């Protein structure tokens, strides 16, 4: 006989594995992301993954106070992203992002399009 607790235990273990995969991919973007806004976006996403982890742990342990921790982590993550965006804005115009030739090609194309319009 399958008990309800067994169903939830299997599902939460699977969710932990999938979230771990998502965490690895997001950390890869934080490390490799060519520009600063890419890294800021990946850090924002990392906060979302951490909230998901906390919620799954709340289900797994049955300790529902974790939900409050997740909500406050979301608040802090939102404030951090807003502060980073203000930082990017206050750093001023950066005309040569350190990324490869792809971004540069896009820039030239866009500038050319802007002239004809």
């Amino acid at each position, binding site marked *: 006989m399958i008990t*309800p607790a067994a*169903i*939830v235990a299997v*599902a*939460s273990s*699977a*969710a932990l594995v*999938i*979230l771990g*995969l*998502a965490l690895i*991919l997001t950390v890869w*973007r934080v490390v490799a992301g060519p*520009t600063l*806004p*890419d890294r*800021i*976006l*990946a850090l*924002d*996403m990392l906060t*979302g*993954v951490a*909230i*998901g982890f906390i*919620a*799954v742990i*709340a*289900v797994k342990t*049955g300790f*529902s106070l*974790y*939900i409050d921790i*997740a*909500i406050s982590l*979301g*608040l802090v993550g*939102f404030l951090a*992203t*807003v502060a980073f*965006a*203000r930082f*990017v*804005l206050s*750093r*001023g*115009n*950066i*005309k040569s*992002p350190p990324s490869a030739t*792809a*971004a*540069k*090609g*896009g*820039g030239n*194309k*866009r500038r050319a*399009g*802007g002239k004809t319009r």
Partner: protein
Amino acid sequence: MMDYLVAAITAALLIAGAFFTLAAAIGLVRLPDLYMRMHSASKAGTVGSGLLLLAAGLYSQDLAILARAIAGFVFFLLTAPVSAHLLARAAHHSGYDLAALSVRDDMPDR
């Protein structure tokens, strides 16, 4: 019987939220541009963590905790577009270009 129903819905929400988060992470890695990555991170990522939070609220079978989880989900739904829009505007304003395969840019040049 009620326990089985709650357990099944919780399990479905857990798996769905985890897959939404994984889809957001895959989009974050695979998409070519900041402005395209923003789609996956701020839409699928928000829904993923919100569904997981909803699962945690539902599994407690307590109305106060479920209300708190729903309030958290609504809070994430309200703040994710604000922060994404702010970051995109800041990045576009400070000169981070679109990817080469973008066809048009409706914002005027600085």
